[in-house]
């Protein structure tokens, strides 16, 4: 099965994240039986959703969810372009 080939598995996870979670910017890397998810999402729920999708496909592998939730901070400072 192509899911046993790490490169194909990473690509399939990436595709499903775009399809089902509308996340295009998550990097998926597979090292042995670990699946690393890296990138940024808007909410903690979305972070969990990304992990659940990866877990669903990557049966038998462990997930390392290194996805960050982007914090929108109050605007601060300015840049003068002269």
């Amino acid at each position: 099965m192509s899911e046993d080939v790490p490169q194909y598995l990473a690509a399939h996870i990436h595709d499903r994240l775009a399809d089902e979670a509308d996340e295009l910017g998550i990097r998926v890397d597979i090292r042995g039986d670990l699946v690393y998810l890296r990138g940024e999402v808007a909410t903690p729920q979305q972070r969990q959703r990304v992990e659940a999708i990866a877990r669903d496909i990557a049966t038998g592998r462990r997930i390392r969810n290194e996805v960050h939730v982007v914090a929108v901070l109050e605007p601060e400072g300015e840049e003068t372009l002269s």
Partner: protein
Amino acid sequence: MISVAAVGDLHVGSDVRGHYRKHLTGIADRADLLLVAGDLTRHGTVAEGRIAADELRDIGVPVVTVLGNHDYHSGAELEIAEVLRDAGVTVLEGNGTVVHCDGTRVGVAGGKGFGGGFAGRCASDFGEPEMKAFVGYTKSFAARLRHSLRSLDDADVRISLTHYSPVKDTLAGEPPEIYPFLGSYLLAEAIDESDVALAVHGHAHKGTEKGVTPGGVRVRNVALPVIQQAYAVYRLSEASGRR
């Protein structure tokens, strides 16, 4: 001097309704206008377009936006633009507008733009129809951007606003393999043919804020994950030009 607030990639959805708007309180004290560099929504549905419109309605300064690739995802880009216009937001797609800020005429031209890559490492208008369509779309957008920037000749300050990037400087942090999907040098070439004070874009969430076109125009990637604040503020004067 005018103060331009800019942000991109809000990617609103029903789970974050009203979140962004909270950060816009007081924007009128900090900026003369707000530019939004596309990807207002996640899936490009009209429902999300309405949420985006509510975030940006009546914030106390004029809002000028372009759409991004996500806003096209459901084939509802025209409806989304309409919903935004109904909320008083100016939506550009290959055209320009002049905003009057305290006696300064600020010209903004732009649109979504598209990819293709950067000089020396870019797609060519050659081969299969699909490839020609890809490059042709960017070329025709660049022609409209060039024309609309030139048509802003009565503005005191000119700004280019796109979703895709005109340069690769501001993509630093993204994998180089995907640069051709993040922007095109054709946009920079169009920008460099007018006296542009600032080129604003989004789309490259893992990119870098600051860059410059080959012709010396300052480029700023204002994608929310890049600037990590509700909006960045750039102060420009009539004399702001190439570096």
